[in-house]
């Protein structure tokens, strides 16, 4: 395996919302490498979204360090500033007063781009999610699935090194959900972005990710194990898929990994 480039990392990160002793996360170390699709799996309310916000720079860890920055000056893009990380929210979170196109352009504002450049890049991102026809529509007239597509386009348009996704398909109906999963998979294979995808759905994690990291236990919660998965192991009917699912379920419950995988780490602190 060739030397991989680290995109972002957390080193022994702990976080308490009031800065006191009530930690929600503790001793979390996680390194994301170039081109990986990492699913962060865990029960609801365990602190997955919080961890994502630490990566995004929206929250400062109480202890430990975050590697890499969220925004840097980029020589290859004619010296303009570039946002290195982008976030897709669970609720799409579009601005109702902006058209679809203007919503997608949002992340490009304030970087010194011309209107034409912004428009061209936003249109490219809309093409990526198959919504170039909807550029002039208002978000409120769109379905949940379409709105989330716009949210994905908005994140992609800043051309981030790291794409952070906070249960992006959690609020969608199963049919829309699986079509968006497929679409995300296609886009990921096209663009080779590094993705950190938060979910509480084991099957979703196994179908999308190259690596599944489990955040469980606590509070404070920590990483209780991880599984690497190859493309051909993704068939939900296969035995290996079901074995992985069982192992992940055990990690979430904080039990001993029945597979005895080398990645197993103790949950005790």
């Amino acid at each position: 395996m060739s030397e991989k480039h680290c995109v972002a990392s957390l080193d022994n990160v702990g976080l308490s919302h009031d800065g006191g002793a009530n930690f929600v996360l503790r001793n979390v170390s996680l390194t994301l490498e170039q081109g990986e699709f990492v699913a962060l799996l865990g029960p609801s309310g365990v602190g997955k979204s919080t961890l994502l916000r630490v990566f995004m720079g929206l929250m400062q860890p109480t202890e430990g360090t975050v590697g890499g920055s969220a925004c840097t000056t980029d020589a290859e893009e004619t010296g303009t500033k570039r946002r290195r990380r982008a976030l897709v929210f669970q609720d799409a979170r579009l601005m109702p007063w902006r058209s679809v196109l203007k919503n997608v352009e949002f992340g490009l504002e304030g970087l010194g781009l011309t209107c034409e450049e912004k428009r061209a890049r936003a249109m490219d991102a809309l093409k990526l999610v198959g919504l170039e026809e909807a550029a002039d529509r208002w978000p409120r007239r769109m379905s949940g699935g379409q709105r989330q597509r716009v949210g994905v386009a908005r994140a992609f348009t800043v051309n981030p090194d790291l794409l952070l996704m906070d249960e992006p398909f959690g609020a969608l109906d199963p049919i829309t959900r699986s079509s968006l999963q497929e679409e995300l998979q296609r886009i990921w294979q096209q663009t080779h972005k590094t993705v950190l995808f938060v979910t509480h759905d084991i099957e979703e994690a196994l179908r999308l990710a190259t690596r599944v990291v489990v955040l469980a236990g606590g509070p404070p919660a920590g990483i209780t194990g991880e599984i690497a998965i190859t493309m051909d192991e993704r068939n939900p009917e296969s035995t290996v898929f079901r074995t992985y699912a069982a192992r992940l379920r055990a990690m979430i419950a904080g039990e001993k990994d029945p597979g005895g995988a080398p990645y197993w780490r103790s949950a005790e602190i």
Partner: protein
Amino acid sequence: MRDKVSFSTKWALGLTGLIVFFGGWEAAVRTGLLPSGMVPAPSSLGPAWLDEVRGGFWQQAILDSLHHYLLGLLIGSVLGAGLGILCGMVAVVDGLLEGIVRLLRPVPGLAWVPFAILWFGLNTSGATFVIAISVFWINFYAAHSAVRGVDPELYELAAAFGHGSFFGRLFKVVLPAASPGLMSGLRTGLGQGWMSVVAAELFGVPGIGARMMQASSLLATDVVVVYMLTMALLYAVTDFLFGFVRTRVLRWQP
């Protein structure tokens, strides 16, 4: 549930109401039911208005009042909405001003007239001041609650996409998100402004209010009513024109 009426029916109903109102009024004066010294007959309003126009009083009064009104409206709206937005966004400023706001809020615009005379004199500035104060509070409260009502998740969105600074939040989130509330404050201020014009000119600054006071001291009730209707018309025009701005700004709303 209210039953629905079509647009044209609504207009026809409104017009019918007005005709019945003025017709009944005219009849009441003619039959002596209302003493003509107390209430002018609607038919006398036309000639009274023509007299005012011929003398140039009507045009001048409108120009003077428009001057006070627009200036007071501009100053009161900008300051009121500006301070309301600042208080809505910055908790420290909000806390600092809360006591002062509670103290000054109940004072009606009319109560400021003595100070307006003292500080500015019997002139445009004095009248503008009184109008600005009453418009100020309406916009202050509208802006304050509109900004407080902005979805906090939008601030997180702004921060995630590089607009987390004060001005980033102000221009990318607060102003557009609060625009419905800001617009309704401005609109209420438009009406309140015309009501304050009378109060502002009551003490002798030339304009519609002053002309009404002159007429009423001469018991020229028809002239008073002419100016009452003039003011209603001016309000209708400003509100109508503002409607275009509002529709344009809020076209994203359902």
